[in-house]
């Protein structure tokens, strides 16, 4: 078992401690009581109403790859505290507690794998690590993922989520938007397909860079997706926000998202799309 998958053990252990055996999770949408086994079997989707629970990154990788094919890149990369932030909770302490909580060094895991036999570059962001904010490590790992995929002629699939910028890294955080977009410019020039999958929630700098630069942009149902958060918009504009504003379905209607895809169909949808685009390159 590679070190990537072994880290899930840590994840499950914490989770099992938090949720004692036999205890059920209540669906926040419909109130249905769901057992842990039920949830895992159904890709963390409520079997009664289709509500999508948050999904850990190892389960995401498993869902989108063929068994034992994922090999992680840059798993040991760690954030530093380049600005030496003071006066508030220390960044170093936050990093450490999030590393202990998740078993991972930062908010994204990247690597290459096979999906239905086809080689792909794959990245999965993880909201449970500092709200998947984008700092130097997230930006660098995603840039390397795209660059390596360009070198190896691989399509890129990237599961996106983010609550905002990694403020503790100041302008280094902002510039990751440019860096990742530059790598995508070259990936696109090589004629390779890129498919971001937008999950709940995907906002701010990630939205204003790689999340919206896909050839095809997919989104899970009911995900909150936008540049500014709804609270900021309300406070700034004092406008009433319409029902369903900034949700996947709303953004599909408004023309940003190609398809809203339930989690259970993501694997098949992505595999079929990549087949079409990569086959087209062969001709």
């Amino acid at each position: 078992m590679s070190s990537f998958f072994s880290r899930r053990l840590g994840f499950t252990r914490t989770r099992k401690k938090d949720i004692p055996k036999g205890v059920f999770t209540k669906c926040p949408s419909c109130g249905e009581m769901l057992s842990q086994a039920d949830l895992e079997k159904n890709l963390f989707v409520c079997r009664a109403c289709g509500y999508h629970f948050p999904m850990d990154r190892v389960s995401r990788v498993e869902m989108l790859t063929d068994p034992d094919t994922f090999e992680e890149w840059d798993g040991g990369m760690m954030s530093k505290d380049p600005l030496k932030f003071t006066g508030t909770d220390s960044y170093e302490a936050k990093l450490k507690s999030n590393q202990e909580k998740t078993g991972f060094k930062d908010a994204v895991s990247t690597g290459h794998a096979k999906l239905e036999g086809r080689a792909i570059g794959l990245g999965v962001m993880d909201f449970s690590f500092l709200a998947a904010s984008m700092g130097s490590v997230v930006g660098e790992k995603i840039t390397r993922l795209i660059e390596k995929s360009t070198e190896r002629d691989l399509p890129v699939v990237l599961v996106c989520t983010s609550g905002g910028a990694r403020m503790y890294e100041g302008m280094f955080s902002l510039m990751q938007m440019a860096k990742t977009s530059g790598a995508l410019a070259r990936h696109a020039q090589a004629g390779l397909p890129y498919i971001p999958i937008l999950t709940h929630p995907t906002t701010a700098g990630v939205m204003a860079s790689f999340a919206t630069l896909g050839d095809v942009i997919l989104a899970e149902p009911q995900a909150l997706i936008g540049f500014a958060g709804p609270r900021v918009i309300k406070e700034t504009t004092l406008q009433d926000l319409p029902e369903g504003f900034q949700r996947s379905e709303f953004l599909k209607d408004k023309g940003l998202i190609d398809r809203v895809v339930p989690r259970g169909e993501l694997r098949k949808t992505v595999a079929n799309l990549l087949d079409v685009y990569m086959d087209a390159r062969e001709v």
Partner: protein
Amino acid sequence: MSTYVLPFEKPILELEKKMAELRTFSEDQDIDMKSEVERIEHKILETKQKIYSGMTPWQKVQMARHPLRPYTRDYINLITTDFTELHGDRLYRDDRAIIGGVARFQGRPVMIIGTQKGRDTKSNLECNFGCPYPEGYRKALRLMKMADKFGMPILSLIDTPGAYPGLESEERHVAEAIAVNLRESFLFKVPFISVVIGEGGSGGALGIGVSNRILILEHAYYSVISPEGCAAILWKDRAYADKAAENLKITAQDLTNNGIADDIISEPLGGAHHDPEATAKNLAECVSKHLAQLDAMTVEERIQDRYDKFRAMGVFEEQAEEA
């Protein structure tokens, strides 16, 4: 010329008041107070130098937002000739928070674009306080691509609190508009120079800032989030904006030290608004210097230069992975 005084400028104002009183007194009483006047004049200069050279990051933010500071259109008028403004994104409408057009810079054709703030309620409503909607970024992209087609260098002037966070912005996908600008900016063959002249407000600034060179005025700032926004999140209180400004390392000086900005353009004592012409002259000289460096490159070198510039940004360490 300044009639708007920032809180930290109060000591200067006090001295200037005293000076005016002294002058009136001396005239009224017909007493020669030359030496006393000279003494206070000297004190004023000393105080100014002390205050303006020792500005805290938060004071710089206030200076960058100074309502009398020259804005994009002022610099366009001061550093170019034959400016012809071009309007609209050919998709939805003409956003007034980003202006742009063709002009001559030192006689040479250039494309100049920038975020535009207003001076009064009417102009601020028109340009939305310098906060662009998506169509502003799409207009900028149209003009930048046009520049690339005709081999004109691109000069962008940045002065915005940020892209507008509103319902319509989201409905027309401001995030996508910015993202596309970032990606496409890496493909331009022409020299591209951006100058932060006031506020560099996060992604809204970066949307016209993926350039070969990032220049910044001495008292301008460029930040991933407004100091108030950062304070509200990390300190749970906007009143800690000064602390946030300090920590975020957003001043021209910090940004050059951290390899984000390439060069600092000096401002006259008291800030750009005390002498817009002199500031514009400094700006033109700095742009000209960097333009010459970019002119000397081949197209491939210029594209690679821009890629390498942003590629190098970020601080991290790498550990061997545990088995």
